[in-house]
């Protein structure tokens, strides 16, 4: 395998890992493992949430450095799991370039769950958490509707590439507006429960987990970046929820 092919394979796998929600150390470790297994003499890798820098040296060849900027990050842990599995497999049995690229393409195009299931999942999260925090069945129904609304809103704003904080502000806004209105119309008395339950759909669970795990692994740069992201998303949700609470409540007499 030539140095170009080797770095290409490693970089493709790293990009899939990083852009689908793997921790920083997992990306670095997997890429390192692959390069050594495929015959590299020296490998240096540096990963931050938006960039991968890879430098490979083969015996008797000029070193090669590649950089890749990650533009969009989504969450698809199936791909992370599959690439993780593939990187372990390469260490046990060497594979040729063509097969590896084909396998990486296959993993990259694994379909995620169908769209309606994602919408239902959001609605279900919202409903379950409303019940979890002590809401009644009617409350959970309202939570169900808010969950659908938030998912649709996130996708529409995602299509226009709105930034994540603005998306979360609007998400909080929707949850709070619907809950305050429902309370004003006399449908329910548990306004707080409904709002808490439905904003749980916006909680950045993976960012929190990954930031803590990155910091344990010693990747302070990535860990702090993700931690700040999680913190700002939390603040954005609170800000979004606060607007209808202050503006609409006097109107409904709450």
């Amino acid at each position, binding site marked *: 395998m030539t140095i170009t092919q080797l770095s290409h394979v490693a970089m493709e796998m790293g990009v899939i890992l990083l852009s689908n*929600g793997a*921790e920083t150390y997992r990306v670095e470790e997997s890429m390192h493992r692959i390069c050594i297994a495929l015959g590299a003499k020296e490998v240096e890798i540096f990963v931050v949430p938006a960039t991968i820098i890879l430098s490979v040296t083969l015996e008797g060849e000029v070193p090669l450095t590649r950089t890749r900027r990650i533009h969009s990050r989504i969450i698809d842990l199936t791909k*992370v799991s599959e690439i993780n599995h593939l990187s372990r497999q390469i260490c046990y049995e060497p594979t040729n370039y063509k097969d590896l690229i084909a396998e990486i393409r296959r993993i990259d195009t694994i379909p995620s769950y169908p769209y309606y299931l994602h919408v239902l999942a959001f609605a279900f999260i919202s409903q379950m958490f409303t019940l979890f*925090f002590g809401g009644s069945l009617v409350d959970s129904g309202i939570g169900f509707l808010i969950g659908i609304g938030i998912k649709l809103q996130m996708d529409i704003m995602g299509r226009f590439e709105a930034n994540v904080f603005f998306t979360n502000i609007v998400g909080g806004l929707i949850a709070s507006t619907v809950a305050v209105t429902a309370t004003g119309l006399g449908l329910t008395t548990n306004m707080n429960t409904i709002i808490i339950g439905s904003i*749980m759909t916006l909680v950045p*669970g*993976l960012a929190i987990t990954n930031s803590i795990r990155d*910091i344990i692994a010693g990747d302070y740069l990535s860990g702090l970046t993700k931690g700040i992201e999680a913190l700002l998303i939390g603040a954005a949700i609170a800000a979004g929820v606060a607007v209808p609470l202050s503006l609409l409540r006097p109107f409904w007499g709450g």
Partner: protein
Amino acid sequence: MNYIAPCLYAFGASLAFAIVFNIPRNKLLLSALGGLLGQLVYVVFQLIIGNDVILYLLATIAISLYAEVMARLTKSPTTIYLAVALIPLVPGGGIYYTMLYFINGEMDLGITTGVHTLLISGALAVGIIMISSTVNLVRKVMLGSSLKIGKKLKHGKNA
């Protein structure tokens, strides 16, 4: 019933979050079980411990242990189990009430609730750190006994 219902709701919410995170089909139920486990530990220890920061710490320790064990058993990343199970423990109510008190002009209550929420978040972080670090240490000690693998580890930053 008061004790079981929250666990079931946490299970349902975790299952839905597992779908949102696109977790592999065959691991959906296993990862959602983590959410149930966290809530179960919280509810059970509630009978003897009154301080809820400690309760959150214990629940996080339980789900971290579960995540590490399941990750080794199914040969998949720990995050799959940890991220999903952690969500029912995130203090969403605390964040909301902090904000609500500030809007209503009740500064004292707002600050008290805010600090309490921060402590709970700290408990979650400490719980994960304690278990992950211990597991890594144990793994390295066990691997280190075999010299061949010990050499391999030196190359990679194996965290």
